[in-house]
């Protein structure tokens, strides 16, 4: 029986120091999902498939999720570089959301296209973090 406890202790230890980073990446998962949602929403707006009111409502909901994630970053004990990287992606997404908001009010398709591209990059970056974590 003793070996079992030994094995169990090692397993706990192994994942505990990584837990902070892992937890932060998992916590950022909804934000990545919302970035992908805004990307799709922007694309569909450009295809005239969705009304502006829907885009506005989706941006609102996304911003709430971004705020929640930035709150989690503030309290997280994960590695500094990791926290900064996620914060950077969040800022990109937040700015892009603001631009998309203006773009749909002024029907400015060029800015909207730019915003959609930035959503794509930000969500791709966070998804890469997720894949790296899964491979470790």
């Amino acid at each position, binding site marked *: 029986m003793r070996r079992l406890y030994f094995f169990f202790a090692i397993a706990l230890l192994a994942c505990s120091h990584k837990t902070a980073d892992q937890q932060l990446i998992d916590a950022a998962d909804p934000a990545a999902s919302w970035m992908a949602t805004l*990307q799709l929403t922007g694309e569909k707006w450009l295809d005239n498939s*969705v009304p502006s009111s829907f885009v506005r409502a989706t941006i609102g909901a996304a911003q709430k999720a971004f705020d929640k994630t930035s709150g989690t970053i503030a309290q997280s004990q994960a590695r500094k570089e990791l926290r900064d990287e996620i914060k950077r992606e969040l800022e990109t997404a937040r700015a892009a959301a603001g631009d998309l908001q203006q773009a749909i009010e002024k029907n400015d398709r060029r800015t909207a296209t730019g915003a959609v591209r930035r959503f794509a990059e930000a969500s791709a970056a966070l998804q890469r973090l997720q894949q790296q974590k899964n491979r470790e």
Partner: protein
Amino acid sequence: MKKALTLALGILTSVGGFFDVGNIATCTQAGARFRFQLIWAMLLATIVVIFLVEMSGRFAAVTGKALPDAIREHFGFGFWLVPFVILTLIHILVIAAEIGGMSFALHLVTGLPLPLFALPSAILVWLFLWRSTFSAIENSTSFLGLITLCFVAAAVWLRPPIHEVLRGSLPSMPSGSAANYWYIAVSIVGAVIAPFLFYFFSSGAVEVGWDRSYIPVNRAVAVIGMGFGSVISIAAIIVAGAVLAPRGIRVDDFHQAALMLTQAFPHWGFALFAVSMGVACFGAAVEVALSTSYTFAQTFGWNWGEDLDPAEDARFTLVYTVSLFVGSLFVLVGFDPLKLTLLTMFISAAVLPFVAAPMLLLMNDRMLLRDASNGIISNIAAALIVVMTLVLAVVSIPLAVMGGS
């Protein structure tokens, strides 16, 4: 001829009652998070619900009594009290979730804030119940429900990889996070095997006056009706799996699911999703509100029946009026419709034993059913169902804590 008409109506009823806010929420989450891996959960739930719906219809046809009526009379008020209280809470929560679904659909179409539509949705359902007879209700809600076929059309149009869909139809271990996988699987089952379904179905059978000769019709209605509703739900899983999963979009909010039809139907996709959701939730809200009144009326022995004018059964009318109003308060206060729906589906899964067990006991009562009581197959199925619901109930609480993130 009358039987053929009843068969058609019965099937339509099951379509109307089957696909609702619970299915939309759980199927889009399952597809978005695990692509086609959870189709088996929907298939399993459908088989179980077909058995349970067939039994409740057969019981009503043979004894002329609906389930709440029979359970109270047979096991006594003390025994019935606990399931009755639980069922009432579930009824209120499901009404709230359905009104949440309707309000979200109206929010999509108009862009106005969601809580604004809580009372209007409840009043719309109330007006429909107040003025219609049972059969009028059933035909129209189900007919409207056919619009949800757009999910099937979208699933076919997207041409998902068949081998992957088939592999998903067999139970499998999760690739992603296990807790979330089983959390969604349990909520899928909770959404399909909704407790009100049997109580409503048996009351409906009494309303339209089924008798022993309707047992074959009842079986056909259960199989085709539930099967039909299940096809639409599986289509929703496939569409979410094909459109949302590759983009890494999780469904934490209904807004994230609202675009899933736009890939197949660029111009109509958005409107189709809104109308489908609105109509499906409206049909379900009508049925759940009615089911609440049936359960109360049969428990206390009041005159009941939607065919009576409101003046003739004031208490029956009062029950669905109050439950619709109380249900709408949840949405008015600002509960998020998706979280409210998932919570409701979870509690439904957790209380299934309380609801299924009394029914299965009844189905074995030779005195009441004589030769129509459960055969060996139904009994084995019944025993498996009770065990499954117990496992679900036990497993759902820890899962909600771990998997619910």
